[in-house]
């Protein structure tokens, strides 16, 4: 989540779901909180019971809107215009929390003289290279900062979490600044000019939100922020899944910083994750460009060949990342054990090196072009859940082998015998060479382990019963494959087999099926002091001399005292002051902190901003930080501590700077070297938008947005008025993601039996579509059919003279059915093109163009792509990038 990482320092939700109840206002945008997270909603509803206001900004009126005080219908994909409008309003009405902004954000910092804003360059910032389609970000730096050297691995590293590493070597406290916020080049004034045209009239024109409604939202947020009150923002994939998704999250972060809501109880930003352990899958990543704990994957360039170079590029002289070397060396010790020595760089040279973008879509296209032999698919269903699902299925047919581990023969495993392309005759089972191995998987109650949820909370679950038949846990599968591979290479003398031979793999086994101990794995993740053999109590004990091991530094402490901390289940006294923190319930990274940056809950002198919003404070008597939560700050650092100008590491962070992961300890209103596409968020239209960009007519969509210009991935051409409608996807409470688990459970299937589309009565009348009858939704990629729900829950939007209609689509249906009472339906992702945010390569599924008509589809869903010429060179593994270089990808969950 680079939007949060570049703003505050860590790419994770700042607060915890129980903390909803402490909010005075809950602002939900880009999320169907009540429908997608009904259990977490418990605390949002408690907040409402205590008098909190709930605001839901969303294209369609959902169950979330129903329990909110205000529903604000917005045109899908126009969120930055709305957020920019809020920023402008907060600044112009002087409603920001001044003491917080001056002391805790980079508002006073001066930007370089040669920086030019989108207001000067018609939507572009200075440094744009039209040939490459990327930015040289030098002019975005603060005054006095030098451009990062050639060794900054972060140039192409993930901005997935934490801050980007291009500020290596900078000690930012020396940046010239103006605490009065008056200097024309200070961030605050830059921000003010940047958003000067985002007026309520403009918001209304771009988003379709009436001015009075917009102002009501702004006033409600302002009234519920400050010393005495806090507002919490919740977003989800409704923001991430856009070609400017990172910028949406950045814009939300700016609003929350200006209002002084970060690091405080009932405040912050909740990034609501879409799966049980999706936070965990970026912490210990399934991502191609990260190592555990958000350490960047080393690259196949000269700069990253030795440990010393890698550490120099990745570490920072100031702030928390000065500990970088301890983390990578301890990780290598966890992986290679005694074979990892200072002499051999702890085996660093044997790590695979990144050669380019190997994200999901890039890999899919390579497979489509015949460039991929095989693939393991675990806990994922790309034939339904990934964008452009028809292209996904065609790509699966081009491989030699495919291993699918799942509960049943779902769409990704059965594409070769039952899919729209098979039914249309475009693909024939006898022609498909892909050999599919379907491995039965254990369900979540049939295996032990932990989940890491939305709020960074690790919760252990015990096994309730054995899996049936041949079904096994993922851990069992991966462990035993690893064991066999190790046996196979045990006698190899080849250098390249070194990491396999020396990989530590000694987990205890138990039971008739030799199940490896999940607790042993967690112990390895927690880490050991190798001199004593004892488990580490936290990352503070880690060293850079090879005498500690740790599988993921941010998880260090989860097995402190040889106690499985995530297994704890004591909520504590919930009615005591600060009782909702429940520090003994599970374990949260980092160091069991439940509210990140909670130093900001106290004023610069260390006193809580108010008694009502007390969380962490400086205890002068004991000379340390104290509070209801574990302080997210060095425990003994005095609030009045001022660093020496030459100070390095954490010594360089002042006692009044709460964002200690940032080199200057401050929250980023302006991000000089974070996201690749903008230092301050700017409104760009979605890749497929039926309207011009009102603010920057020459630009339209994000100039850095990733597109694949291939015949199989057609986009609506500019000026093509055949697709005048805006479509967006959403989730229903009754179904789970791509649906195989819920569509085949009769009790859930009966509740939402059919794929449907929600449309407004005006559009329905125009197209002769009747409620409950069939309708077809069409894009250049496919057409699908759905039952029409003609409802006032979707409203036509008035945007100036124009009226825009939206089509809202739940995306849970596919063809797979194991149960006669299961349900099937057309797959929404057949409709959507693959595309990407420049920072994350996350597609744009939350806003795209379509058309609708009454009746049923003419043929199979993706038949219109059957005849396109797909001849590509399989060796060209990054084909036709439209000169955009994608940089990283989010986990599999975030796919739809």
């Amino acid at each position: 989540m680079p939007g949060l990482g570049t703003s505050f320092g860590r790419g994770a939700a700042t607060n915890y779901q129980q903390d909803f109840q402490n909010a005075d206002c809950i602002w939900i945008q880009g999320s169907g909180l009540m429908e997608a997270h009904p259990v977490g909603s418990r605390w949002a509803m408690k907040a409402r019971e205590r008098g909190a206001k709930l605001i839901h900004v969303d294209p369609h009126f959902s169950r979330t809107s129903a329990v909110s005080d205000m529903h604000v219908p917005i045109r899908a994909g126009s969120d930055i215009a709305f957020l920019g409008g809020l920023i402008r309003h907060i600044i112009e009405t002087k409603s920001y929390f001044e003491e917080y902004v001056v002391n805790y954000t980079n508002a006073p910092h001066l930007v370089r003289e040669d920086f030019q804003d989108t207001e000067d360059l018609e939507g572009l910032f200075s440094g744009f290279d039209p040939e490459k389609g990327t930015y040289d970000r030098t002019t975005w730096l603060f005054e006095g900062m030098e451009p990062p050297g050639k060794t900054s691995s972060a140039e192409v590293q993930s901005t997935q979490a934490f801050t980007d590493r291009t500020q290596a070597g900078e000690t930012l406290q020396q940046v010239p600044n103006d605490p009065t916020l008056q200097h024309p080049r200070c961030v605050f004034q830059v921000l003010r000019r940047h958003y000067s045209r985002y007026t309520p009239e403009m918001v209304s024109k771009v988003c379709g939100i009436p001015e009075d409604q917009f102002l009501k939202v702004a006033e409600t947020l302002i009234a519920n922020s400050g010393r005495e009150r806090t507002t919490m923002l919740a977003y989800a994939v409704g923001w991430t899944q856009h070609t400017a998704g990172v910028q949406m999250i950045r814009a939300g972060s700016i609003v929350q910083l200006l209002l002084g809501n970060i690091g405080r109880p009932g405040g912050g930003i909740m990034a609501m994750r879409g799966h049980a352990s999706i936070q965990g899958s970026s912490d210990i990543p399934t991502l191609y460009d990260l190592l555990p704990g958000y350490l960047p994957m080393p690259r196949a360039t000269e700069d990253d060949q030795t440990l010393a170079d890698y550490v120099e590029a990745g570490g920072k002289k100031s702030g928390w990342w000065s500990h970088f070397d301890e983390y990578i060396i301890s990780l290598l010790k966890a992986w290679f054990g005694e074979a990892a020595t200072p002499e051999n760089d702890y085996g660093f040279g044997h790590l695979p090196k990144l050669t380019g973008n190997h994200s999901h879509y890039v890999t899919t296209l390579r497979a489509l072009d015949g460039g991929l032999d095989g693939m393991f698919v675990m806990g994922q269903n790309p034939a339904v859940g990934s964008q452009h699902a028809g292209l996904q299925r065609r790509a699966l047919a081009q491989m030699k082998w495919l291993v699918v581990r799942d509960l049943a023969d779902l769409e990704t495993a059965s594409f070769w015998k039952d899919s729209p392309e098979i039914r249309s005759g475009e693909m024939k089972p006898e022609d498909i060479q892909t050999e599919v191995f379907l491995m039965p998987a254990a369900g979540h109650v049939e295996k032990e382990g932990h989940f890491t949820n939305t709020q960074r909370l690790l919760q252990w679950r015990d096994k309730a019963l054995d899996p049936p038949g041949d079904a096994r846990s993922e851990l069992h599968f991966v462990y035993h494959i690893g064991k066999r591979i190790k046996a196979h290479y045990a006698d190899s003398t080849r250098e390249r087999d070194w990491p396999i031979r020396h990989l530590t793999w000694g987990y205890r086994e138990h039971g008739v099926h030799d199940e490896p101990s999940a607790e042993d794995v967690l112990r390895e993740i927690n880490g050991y002091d190798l001199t004593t053999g004892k488990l580490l109590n936290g990352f503070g004990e880690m060293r850079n001399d090879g005498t500690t091991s740790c599988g993921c530094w941010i998880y260090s402490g989860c097995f402190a005292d040889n106690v499985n901390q995530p297994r704890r289940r004591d909520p504590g006294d919930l009615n005591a002051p600060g009782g909702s923190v429940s520090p003994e319930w599970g374990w949260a990274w980092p160091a069991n902190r439940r509210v990140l940056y909670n130093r900001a809950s106290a004023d610069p002198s260390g006193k809580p901003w108010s008694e009502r919003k007390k969380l962490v404070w400086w205890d002068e008597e004991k000379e340390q930080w104290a509070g209801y939560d574990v302080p997210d700050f060095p425990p003994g650092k005095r609030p009045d501590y001022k660093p020496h100008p030459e100070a390095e590491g954490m010594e360089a962070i002042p006692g009044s700077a709460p964002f200690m992961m940032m080199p200057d300890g401050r929250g980023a209103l302006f991000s000089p070297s974070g996201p690749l596409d903008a230092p301050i968020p700017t409104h760009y239209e979605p890749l497929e938008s039926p309207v011009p960009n009102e603010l920057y007519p020459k630009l339209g969509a994000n100039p850095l947005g990733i597109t694949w210009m291939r015949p199989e991935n057609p986009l609506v051409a500019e000026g093509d008025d055949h697709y005048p409608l805006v479509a967006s996807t959403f989730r229903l409470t009754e179904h789970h993601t791509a649906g195989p688990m819920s569509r085949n459970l009769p009790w859930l299937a009966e509740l939402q039996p059919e794929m449907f589309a929600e449309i407004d009565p005006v559009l329905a009348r125009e197209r002769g579509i009747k409620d409950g009858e069939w309708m077809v939704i069409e894009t250049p990629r496919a057409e699908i059919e759905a039952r029409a729900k003609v409802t006032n829950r979707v409203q036509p939007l008035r945007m100036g003279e124009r009226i825009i209609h939206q089509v809202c689509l739940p995306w849970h249906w596919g063809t797979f059915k194991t149960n006669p009472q299961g349900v099937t339906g057309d797959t929404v992702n057949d409709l959507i093109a693959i595309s990407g945010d420049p920072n994350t390569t996350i597609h744009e599924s939350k806003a795209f163009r379509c058309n609708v008509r009454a009746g049923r589809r003419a043929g199979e869903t993706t038949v219109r792509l059957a005849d396109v010429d797909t001849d590509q060179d399989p060796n060209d593994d990054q084909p036709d990038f439209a000169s955009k270089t994608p940089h990283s990808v989010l986990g599999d969950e975030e796919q739809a």
Partner: protein
Amino acid sequence: MEIAVQRPEAQRMGFFTDTTVCIGCKACEVACKQWNDLPADDLRASLSYDATRELSASTWRHVRFVETLRIPEPEPTLNFVEAALGAQLDRWVFMSDVCKHCTHAGCLDACPTGALIRTEFETVIVQSDVCNGCGYCVPSCPFGVIDRDPYDGRAAKCTLCYDRLEDGLEPACAKACPTDSIQFGPYEELVERAKGRVATLHERGLEGAYLYGAGDEPQDQLAGGLGAFFLLTEPPERYGLPAHADSPIQQNGPIANATGVAAAFVAAGLAFGAFAAAFRKAR
């Protein structure tokens, strides 16, 4: 009130369903079907988001979705498009409906076999091994709750999880409810809590909040008081609930005066209405 099962320490237990905190997730419906091992119904085209539509022999909890529109003041110049642009979904209210476990239970009063009994928790349950499937209970329920299983013909409805209560567990629906919209407990405690809740909502400006089936004067009580009662914010009819209800048999006692005669006629009319409703449903 005749209690069929005696247990000295038992007391009346009930449900208080607070519609103002329901998020419409239907976890109660699913938890009920899972605990009671009820089949999914044949798939039906849904009414908006409501695919189960009503309580039945195999659906003992049902979340009703009530939509109300706010239409702008009628103006002669307003065309369809303008009207639609101004029309906003005013409220979308969710209500988890269930058997009311009436004090005067029409189904129990009408049952000729003794299959329907009142338990030690003063709840009403069907003993399926006694039920002969005559169906008299169906039109006797003023709420249209009890229904006959289409496959074996016997009557079925919510038991307030009698089996769980006997083991000191709360009913499955209340256990599953993430927002405590469904609350379970000793009846008298629940009524007091519910009254306090109504007062709180009134203070907060939600003046339309009221209790349906509890807290009324004795002569106004619905079916003598409902063991499962509701906090509502719209007129009962919006939720498909009758404004007045009692067991038909309660009206067959001796008539004391003219007012009583009039009341009996009204009650008969209502009972016929309920019968007609049930008949429509049975079709």
